[in-house]
């Protein structure tokens, strides 16, 4: 499902978003009036040096943080109007996170890890084991369901994390340096997986500072000093 950048209501809409952190007596402007839209099904790579604001934007889109000013809309809903519980439910239903360090529960099996978001769902599925198993087979790990993270390679752990992100049928997957802890061959596998998800209609946004990784995305946004300095779409 190739995205058409000119039509349709954007899935994610950022309007003049700023984020200011106060570090001691110093104010740090992590985001400085950013307006950007993300269209359903498009895979976007956000790039830029560290401290440029790319992770801050990810956290805001992921409803883990609130902007200092400006508005953020996801599926047409203004996040400023949502309470803490509604934001938690939004993270549960609409957004899947993939982290650089995987963040799996070490004492739990792959299957139990994937089940975690389903257990927090307010509309629980009848059979969460079946859904978790389905997600693990989508990432090619149907034979590793009872393994604990320590028994899996880095690439396999990241696939479990992706399966966990997929479990709740999210429309958005946010991946923060998803290949940062992996070698280049495993990185490619993980990126192929994310590209695949994007082709299935999921909006994948990833933060990276590696050009080769960013090459998988249909769109590349460059950040510097809290503002967007470039926004390139691949032309086919």
């Amino acid at each position, binding site marked *: 499902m190739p995205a058409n950048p000119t039509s349709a209501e954007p899935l994610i809409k950022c309007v003049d978003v700023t984020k200011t952190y106060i570090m001691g007596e110093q104010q740090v402007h992590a985001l400085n009036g950013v307006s950007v839209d993300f269209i359903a099904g498009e895979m976007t790579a956000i790039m830029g040096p560290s401290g440029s604001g790319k992770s801050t934007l990810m956290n805001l889109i992921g409803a883990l943080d609130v902007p200092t000013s400006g508005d953020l809309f996801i599926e047409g809903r203004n996040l400023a109007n949502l309470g803490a519980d509604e934001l*938690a*439910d939004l*993270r*549960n239903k609409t957004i899947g*996170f993939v982290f650089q360090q995987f*963040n799996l529960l070490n004492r739990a099996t792959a299957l139990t890890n994937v089940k975690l978001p389903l257990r927090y769902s307010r509309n629980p599925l009848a059979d969460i084991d079946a859904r978790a198993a389905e997600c693990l087979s989508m990432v090619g790990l149907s034979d590793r369901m009872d393994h604990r993270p320590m028994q899996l390679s880095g690439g396999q752990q990241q696939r479990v994390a992706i399966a966990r992100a997929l479990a709740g049928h999210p429309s958005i997957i946010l991946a923060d340096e998803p290949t940062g802890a992996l070698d280049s061959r495993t990185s490619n596998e993980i990126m192929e997986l994310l590209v695949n998800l994007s082709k299935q209609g999921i909006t994948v946004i990833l933060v990276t500072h590696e050009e080769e990784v960013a090459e998988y995305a249909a769109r590349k946004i460059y950040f510097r000093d809290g503002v967007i300095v470039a926004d390139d779409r691949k032309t086919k």
Partner: protein
Amino acid sequence: MKLKLAISSAIEALLANVLRSFLTMLGIMIGVASVMAMMAISEGAAIQVDQQISALGASNLTVRPGASRRGGRHSGANSAPPFTDKQVQILQQEPYVTAISARNSGGVTVVSGSDNWATQLYGTNVGYFETQSWGVTAGELFTQRQISQSAAVVVIGKTVADTLFEGTNPLGQMIRAKNVPLRVIGVLEEKGQSSFGGDRDDIVIVPITTARNRILGAHKTTPKHVSSIEISVADGYIMADVQNQLEDRLREIRRIKPGAADNFRVFNIADFVRARSSTQATMGVLLAFTAAVSLIVGGVGVMNIMLVSVTERTREIGLRMAVGARKGDILGQFLAEAILLCLIGGLIGSALGVGAAELAANVGGFPISISPMIAATALSAAIFIGLFFGYFPARRAAQLNPIEALRHE
């Protein structure tokens, strides 16, 4: 908050570090065990006191002569003129009296064949046995007729029977008290220890007339004297009111002038037992308080470990928040963990407490009483401790900022 999820997550977390969970429970276990044991012991003591009071007759009043005063010289207790048969008969007519005893007593050595035994001899009326609810296990009590005849008959306590007639039937045998031969007509029921530590079964009881006329001798000024009266009060009367009425009546019949001091004393022996046992009760409360302090110290231990656990699992908490856990879910999970620790600790502690109480009963000879109420109290105290000391760490977990929590190393 999702209760099932909170509990299953808590169980997973507790099983992830069994040794730590056990050590954390230890404080609660010891606390609950000591609360249980102390409550069982003080409850047992309270029940024992109640039994002693009802053995004495909870609604009995005792009347004794007071101190006499002659020419400014104050003599000791019981030195005032004794009561008389006549006074006993008058008091018997009072509406609140269900039974009245007249009793004289003295120490005697009783002799049977070549054996002898120093014991207490009571001369009583028939009413005495009613006021004490005392009957015989063998033979019979003496009758009113035997009293009017000053019959040479005696009923003996179990201790005396066991000592003088070991292995043989005492009924019909003769014993001598101060050289007066008495025929044993009854053996009294066993009463055991008195509340003041004496052996109530070390006794021989003869008709009051026999005691006065033949054994203990008559009072020098009052021929038909009675040195102690006990009155059983009918149900439905208030003891303090009866005591006042009785005192008024006694002043009347003993012709005490208005303004003059009483020459008798009325008291309620149950009050003495209660007063004595209040020291015991105070001890029990103090011990239970100490035990409760140890329970609180256990709770602080739980809080301590829970705070460590929250810090250790900061990333996990951040992750749970990222995948959609609400603050309430996190709060519930950690609260469930603390309560579960305390509940399991409490259950083990209860078992240990019962064991400790049994040990106190078997080795230390303490009277104990373990009721489901005590177990319920100790367990709910444990749950409350979990709730109270678990809330602060749980709230700290729920208030974590998810981004910072996810970055936590």
